[in-house]
């Protein structure tokens, strides 16, 4: 392993635009919506290593992978492969880059041309890149490849539909290897396969990697798989990398609250082990209008209360949730009123509606079976005032913001390096760091 990374992604962005038609652009009442699928990602991959990229569905993993290979044009940022900038490649350079970096796709049922035989599928990339001297030579190579990935050379003249998912994925791997690449980007290569077949394909990838010295970017939402085959892991959330660490370190000691949630969700095959299973609240927010500050804050179990907050962190979280629900317009007072009216069969007052909102969103946290929290009187006052604002057409969010806002909401956390190959984007961590620094300055001051 050299120090110079084989692939270095810098501030990569990929935005998609909704409503981009000419007419919508001319209309002032319509705006072009930007979907920030990948929003400023830095990654480095050393030669020969496997970097895992994990995250929920829809967080931009696949878009990132495709942008790295320039299968979609990145909006901004740079991708350096060895000494060259992939984003500035001409068509010809891009073509030769394709023989260096290959992709294994997620769904083996759609990534093979149904009208190509296995032979055609494997030979075509060789032809494109002028590998092999004659068609006999390429045929021979195709036979070797197909046997190497665990199929029979008799299969060469069959069509994809005659194979099982696992076999198809083997064909797909053979196609990727046909050009003798240096880098393989594997986009959830086993998630479409039966569990029993997953291991076989993973082992095959592992073996091939060692044999050929491949560098691999392995994308998955399955942490147990990542744990097995990756050297380092980057955790992605809503278009950003939130934590980077060596695999073992990440699984033993996840720093970012999101990583903690992910790690805690891995099943432990031991019924006697008890642990806190942290469940995430809500859905992944839309990348069209990502949350302010730290993008994870609306769902973060560890969202930071202000310094003068005297109550439970849990209560704090629920108030933030109420605020978010009010902001998104999810709280529909009319609907609540008519619901209450149909229950009691009598007119209900504003107070009743407010009470119901508090009950729903704060006390029961809108979750079936969640612990009830007590609302201290002074907090209840604030909330009541904010909710009254809804009835008088004022902005309740603004009122809440005055006394209830978190650093997580207001400030984007910066990346802080914890140690070698390890970094976290989280205010919690910033603070820890600050405290440590303060401590150390105190200590040094004492020494003098």
């Amino acid at each position, binding site marked *: 392993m050299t120090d110079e990374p084989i692939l270095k992604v810098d501030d990569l962005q990929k935005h998609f635009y909704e409503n981009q038609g000419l007419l919508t652009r001319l209309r002032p009442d319509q705006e072009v919506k930007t979907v920030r699928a990948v929003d400023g990602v830095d990654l480095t991959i050393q030669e020969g290593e496997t970097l895992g990229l994990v995250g929920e569905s829809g967080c931009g993993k696949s878009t990132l992978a495709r942008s790295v290979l320039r*299968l979609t044009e990145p909006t901004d940022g740079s991708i350096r492969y060895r000494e060259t900038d992939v984003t500035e490649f001409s068509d010809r350079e891009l073509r030769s880059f394709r023989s260096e970096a290959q*992709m294994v*796709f997620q769904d083996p049922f759609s990534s*093979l*041309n149904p009208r190509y035989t296995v032979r055609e599928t494997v030979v*075509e*990339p060789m032809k*494109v*890149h002028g590998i092999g001297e004659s068609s006999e030579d390429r045929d021979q190579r195709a036979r070797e490849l197909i046997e190497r990935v665990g199929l029979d050379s008799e299969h060469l003249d069959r069509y994809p539909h*005659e194979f099982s998912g696992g076999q198809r994925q083997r064909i797909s791997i053979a196609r990727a290897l046909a050009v003798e690449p240096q880098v393989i980007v594997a986009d959830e290569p086993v998630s479409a396969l039966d569990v029993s077949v997953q291991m076989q394909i993973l082992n095959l990838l592992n073996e091939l990697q060692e044999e050929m010295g491949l560098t691999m970017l392995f994308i998955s939402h399955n942490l147990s798989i990542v744990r097995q085959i990756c050297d380092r892991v980057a955790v992605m959330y809503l278009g950003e990398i939130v934590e980077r660490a060596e695999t073992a370190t990440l699984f033993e000691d996840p720093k970012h609250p999101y990583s903690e949630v992910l790690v805690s969700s891995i099943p432990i095959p031991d019924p006697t082990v008890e642990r806190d299973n942290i469940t995430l609240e809500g859905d992944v927010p839309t990348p069209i209008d990502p949350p302010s500050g730290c993008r994870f804050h609306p769902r973060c179990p560890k969202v930071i209360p202000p310094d003068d907050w005297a109550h439970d962190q849990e209560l704090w979280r629920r108030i933030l949730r109420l605020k978010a629900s009010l902001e998104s317009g999810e709280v529909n007072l009319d609907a609540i009123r008519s619901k209450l009216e149909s229950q009691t069969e009598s007119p209900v007052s504003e107070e009743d509606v407010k009470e119901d909102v508090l009950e729903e969103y704060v006390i029961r946290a809108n979750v079936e079976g969640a612990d009830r929290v007590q609302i201290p009187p002074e907090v209840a006052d604030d909330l009541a005032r904010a909710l009254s604002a809804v009835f008088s057409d004022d902005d309740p969010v603004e009122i809440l913001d005055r006394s209830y806002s978190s650093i997580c909401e207001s400030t984007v956390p910066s990346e802080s390096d914890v140690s070698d190959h390890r970094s976290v984007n989280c205010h919690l961590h910033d603070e820890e760091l600050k405290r440590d620094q303060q401590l150390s300055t105190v200590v040094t001051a004492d020494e003098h």
Partner: protein
Amino acid sequence: MTDITIDRGTMVEPLREKYNQFADTYRQLDASARISFWIVFGIVNTAIFAPILAPYDPAALHYEASLQGPTLAHPLGADLMGRDILSRLIFGTRASLAVGVVAVGIAVLIGVPLGSIAGYLGGWTDEFIMRSMDVVISIPALVLGLAIVGAIGAGLVNVIAVVAIVYSPQYARIIRGSVLSVKEEEYVEAAENTGLGNASILVKHILPNAFTPVIVQSTYHVATAIILEASLSFLGLGVQPPRPTWGMMIASGRQYLPGEWWISVFPGIAIMITVLAFNILGDGLQDEFDPRSETETGGGA
């Protein structure tokens, strides 16, 4: 001596291979497609050997047989001027086939490249091509026919030109839609990832997977083209008399219905059989060309 035999061998070998391929394909067809194949085969041969097969000259007038029903002398009867319907039917095969098959073939050759380029490249290219196609579509077929015939005169070749121009936008539209959906397939992205150029991706990966609706549409268009030819001929803009076409025969027999039905019913039946045969054969071939269908039938056996 040896040289000659080797030459003969190398020349015969590819032919034999082609024949074997054909025989293989034929064996895979189901019964209805096989029958259709032979009907189409028969129709094509009828067109080629019309002068040998027809009992009379199609233009010859037999006044004594005017408006006569089927008899031994005129098996399918005769029209007002005593022309033999069977002979006219046999000669009419030529014009109808030319219009039905050649014109539709040309329409496919024009429409498919335009539509697939539009669908694959998208953007302004797409807008330009498809809006031009819309212009052509917006003109009614007969009016366009009138204009073209008015410009270059009536005749078989011009009818073919009209049909080809009128139908080509439809193929452009069909293949464009199909290309749009196929180009989102992951194997197209995979092909891009192998470093293949745009043209190769379009021709090798997208078109073969997008072509099915074109085949279906074209077998149907063979029928409507024959009918369009009839309309044009009826207006005197198509194939010029005395050359017979099926469409013209139906049109001219229309006024004698239902009494002297044989004048228009037999050409009608001819059109129906031709169209059906092309349709069924098209369906059968399409199944055959789809590699997935092979195991489906195999699995059933």
